[in-house]
């Protein structure tokens, strides 16, 4: 029964910063086995939405339920089920990779030998072995990102939220992360934001495009592709992305390219 229950359920999320309405009523439902690609131009409200989904920001209106637990009323139960890679993969830069991962494991409830075991598994999973003893501030962008991913996966969460997980990675690393997401997505609910449209085709079972804080598309990558006129043969997703997001931008005289 619980296999089909929505692991992420967000309803009517709204967030305002001063006079800017960053998110204007977003609904999201992600079930186990789904990988949702979260798309939108810069400043569309992707990160703000993800921050509300993971409990960093408190929404002005709306609710988030993680595996049935309301994030506002039962934050710990909800947060313990989420693995979150925040934008830019923030970490404690003066810590060594394995100490940082051990800190996250301990804070999440592992004890004694389990901590070590969890760290080893996470390190192996994202191939961090060469730099596990290194300080995070000395790592390359790719390894920093992997440390962030390792931290998000350390407790085997049923819900994973990743803000641009492949940003700054080289093609090999991108390939590896995509493979990992595909594999994890079989038994979990995953939301990942990205700017790379091929990524949606490669790993996502669903795509949601938002623009100016509101959803402009919600469907499978196939349905997204179906919106493109037949005569366009290359960069089809780019085309539909531009059409969906520029329409409103132009109408509002936004002026982004």
């Amino acid at each position, binding site marked *: 029964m619980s*296999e089909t229950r929505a692991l992420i359920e967000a309803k009517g999320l709204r967030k305002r910063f001063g006079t800017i309405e960053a998110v204007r009523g977003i609904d999201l439902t992600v079930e186990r086995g789904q990988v949702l690609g979260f798309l939108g131009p810069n400043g569309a409200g992707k990160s703000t939405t993800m921050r509300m989904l993971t409990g960093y920001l408190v929404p002005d209106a709306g609710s988030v339920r993680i595996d049935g637990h309301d994030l506002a009323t039962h934050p710990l139960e909800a*947060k313990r089920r989420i693995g979150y890679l925040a934008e830019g993969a923030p970490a404690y830069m003066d810590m060594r990779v394995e100490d940082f991962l051990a800190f996250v494991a*301990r804070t999440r409830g592992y004890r004694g030998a389990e901590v070590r075991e969890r760290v080893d598994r996470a390190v192996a999973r994202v191939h961090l072995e060469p730099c596990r003893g290194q300080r995070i501030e000395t790592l390359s962008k790719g390894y920093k990102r992997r440390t962030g991913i390792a931290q998000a996966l350390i407790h085997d*969460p*049923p819900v994973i939220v990743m803000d641009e997980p492949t940003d700054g990675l080289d093609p090999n690393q991108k390939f590896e992360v995509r493979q990992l997401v595909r594999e994890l997505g079989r038994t979990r609910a995953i939301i990942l934001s990205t700017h790379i449209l091929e990524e949606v085709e490669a790993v996502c079972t669903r795509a949601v495009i938002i623009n100016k804080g509101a959803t402009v598309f919600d469907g499978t990558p196939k349905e997204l592709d179906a919106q493109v006129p037949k005569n366009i043969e290359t960069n089809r997703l780019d085309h539909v992305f531009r059409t969906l997001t520029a329409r409103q931008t132009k109408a509002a005289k936004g002026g982004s390219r």
Partner: protein
Amino acid sequence: MSDAPQPPPLPSALARTLSIARREFAGYFATPLAPVFLVMFVALSALLAFQAGGLFTRGSADMRPFFQWQPWLALFFMPALGMRLWADERRSGSLELLMTLPVTTADMVIGKFLAAWAFACVSLVLTFPLWATVAWLGDPDHGVIIAGYIATALLFGTLLSICACLSACTRNAVVAFVLSVAVCFLLLMTGYGLVQDFFARWAPPSIVEAVASMSSLVHFHALERGVLDARDLLYPASVILGMLAINGILLHWKAAR
């Protein structure tokens, strides 16, 4: 269900708090801050006690010259310890990581404060050679010296709780330092003759007394002389608890925006 990922059970509040405190405490030693702080603190403590306080020349086997300078050393050293507690987390983005882990605001606030306080107490413990010297040269009242150490530790805690709170107001550690020195200075000065004389000139004695009772210095000196009064213990305890509560509210308030 069999391959469904299962995160570990929630750790106790104590375990979560200690995990955060442990990371924070280790963080001091991950940078040159710890050795610089400890060496400078012990060296300046000794210098002030011997040179300015005349520890040897006054011909009395006690540590009053040492303790009398502690509030003024703390005025700079405690803000140096407390300034980065929250400002750095905010600036580096690690606050997002911390706040999306399954921990409560109280776990974070208390954990970080305890780490800073423990570090301050370590620096105080390192001044024990002074005590040993006094004990070797004369026959001091060890009870009074212990009271002096307790008074100093409580003063450190009081000032640190204020610094932690101010650090939560900004993402700039230097701003947090300057604000902390200013506020701590005011708090110490209200017990100083100069300020009390100013009030005594026009205000009724009850007000003068109220102003003096707000000062850390008055309670510090009472304890440091070895006079145990419940009010002098209650004062630091209530300031610390009050400041930690405000610290938590500030974090919440900032998270909501």
